[in-house]
């Protein structure tokens, strides 16, 4: 059974894309794994999410009511808000195998976005070279992002601690010369 989509691509490039969340205030979690539907699905990691007004020159204003009161009194304002999220592409599927490299074409606009199933997360994170993509991200604090990704991958592994060590060692290879960043990530992923 196909899962319901969590969003729709509204802007894309070879390295990242923007999607509009299906539910207001409910984007996929920061650092979680998502995929874009298509003949050859594209995998990505959520690096940013935000909610804003539909009209660019009309800012949301404070009403000093609780959300429930607002929904009762002025339901229309929620129709004017949108939640969007941004994701960095970490790989794609080709002939049934996951390739940890950029897809030849960017995700198509209006494609649906899904969260990855635990099995897909395990497959995706069986190799961790994609950390390199995350290190180029500038829109989010990289320590937080990588720690979030490792936690998400660890969550589908029933406390398999050796995965944390393996991920840590991959990081040493990538950012061994930046011990501060390395240890701050490692501190974040310790249980």
């Amino acid at each position: 059974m196909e899962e319901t989509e969590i969003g729709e691509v509204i802007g894309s490039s070879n390295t990242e894309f923007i999607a509009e969340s299906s539910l207001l205030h409910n984007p996929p979690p920061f650092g979680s794994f998502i995929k874009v539907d298509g003949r050859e699905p594209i995998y990505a990691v959520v690096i940013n999410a935000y909610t804003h007004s539909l009209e660019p020159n009309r800012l949301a204003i404070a009403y000093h009511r609780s959300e429930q009161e607002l929904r009762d009194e002025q339901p229309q304002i929620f129709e004017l808000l949108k939640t969007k999220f941004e994701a960095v592409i970490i790989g794609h599927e080709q002939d049934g195998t996951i390739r940890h490299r950029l897809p030849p074409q960017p995700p198509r606009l209006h494609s649906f976005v899904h969260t990855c199933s635990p099995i897909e997360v395990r497959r995706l994170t069986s190799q961790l070279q994609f950390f390199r993509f995350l290190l180029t991200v500038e829109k989010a604090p990289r320590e937080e992002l990588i720690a979030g990704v490792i936690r998400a991958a660890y969550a589908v592994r029933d406390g398999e601690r050796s995965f944390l060590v393996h991920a840590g060692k991959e990081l040493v290879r990538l950012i061994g010369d930046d011990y501060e960043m390395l240890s701050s990530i490692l501190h974040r992923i310790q249980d």
Partner: protein
Amino acid sequence: MRELRRRVGVVVNGSLVAGLEMKLDEWYSVEDIRAGKFVVIEGEKSRFFCMVIDVRLDATNPQVLADPPSEEDELIRQVLHGSATYGTVCLRPLLMMDKDEVVAGHGDPHLVKTIPVHFSVVCEAEEEDVNQVFGSEDMGTQFFHIGRPLDMETPICIDLESFVERSNGIFGKTGTGKTFLTRLVLSGLIHSNRAVNLIYDMHSEYGWQATQEAGNGRGSFVKGLKQLFGSRVSIFTLDPESARRRGIQSDFNVKIPYNQITVEDIASLSEELNLNPTAVESAYLIVNRFGREWLSELLKQDPKDIKDFAEHVGAHPESISALHRKLKRLEKFDFLQERVSEDTVYKILEFIDKGVHIVLEFGQQSSFLCYMLVSNILTRRLHDQYVMKTERFLSTGKPQDKPKQLIITIEEAHKFLNPTAARQTIFGTIAREMRKYFVSLLIVDQRPSSIDDEVLSQVGTRITSLLSDEKDINAVLTGVSNANWLRSVLASLDSKQQALLMGHAVPMPVVIRTRDYDHVFYSAMGAVEGEALAQKAQSNIADLFGDR
């Protein structure tokens, strides 16, 4: 076979002269790497046999060392281990062998002339590697199992054929098992029959039983050579009383006539007897007058008549008086006599010709003076006899005239072979001229730094247990080329039952745990004991008298 090998790491750096560096695999604990460990590198075309000489902790980033993870940061420690922080092992390649030859199962390892390519895999050595390098007892009696590598159960053998060709040394601080090693080596030599041994046994610990100082059964008695090899070993003694007290049946009581003592013998004892050079010169004057009987003539003199005696020989009275006084000490040795019924040297030669090994026990006469005097006198004459025998052999060329290879074991060798003595005593000559006359030395000593460099450089095989004095370590490494790296190995030996073998009889230096000198060893040497002995006795009785 190759899949069974346990990986240790990969080669990352190095040179032929300075040695190789290996990055230790993360799953291999640095604490399992011991200096002296034997490892094998699978190169592209050759297999290299190496020894671990140093282990070092390294980090890719110095910042890690400045801010080490705390004890609670278990994950960080695990992550850093083997990646940002790792062990580096320094290896010394010693021998190499073509891989084709390895596969074909023939060919001998030869000295390294190159180094393996980058990232060659380093593995723990296996039994077949050890056998390939050191040979095994199955390959013939010339190989004698002397011990095992530090972390393996495969026997390491020395090649006795090469061993007996040169003078050899057993060195080590006191209490590190020199006597034990010597007994082991002597057993091997006797068992294999490669050479006849003459052992100057200062403390009477080789011939009959002695107490064990270490290992299993510490404090118990271990068998002596006579007990192990029976009639192939005979015990000569200088002190029949002591032998009797210890319940030993000696084969010959050594007596030495005064006329066999030469001035050279006395001169080499000048330190022990506190003689000055003038005394030696005076002694020559007496020899001029009385010839071989000089010593008995001198000792016969009453102190009152010394002046006349000095005038008679033309020497200074004071000097002769001092010489007389000092040499009087010799009179208290019971084994020195005016006349003897049987000449010890001829007796020794007779035994040697029969291939019987001789342990000469000193019993209570274990002073340096006595030890040096007796061993000098006997060895000098033995050497003369051997020179004659060799010359006869060289002139006739008949195999039956070939003298039996003789190995003389001396303890406290630095007394004989220190730079001054080595030029005077016969042992210096033997050590230098080596195998030319079929006589070589087995030098047992705790102070190799006091031994003459020239002698040390001629020592073929060195078996060294722990030495801590820098001077002694340097001395032991004299004559070993490029030996600096062995220093750390030598200093890190255990004080018991470990030794470094290097030199002529082993293809590469190696650290061993010495073989246990126990019942297993006794039976390997062919000794029969306990129940087996009773059975053998029964069957001998049956053979002699028939079944009753």
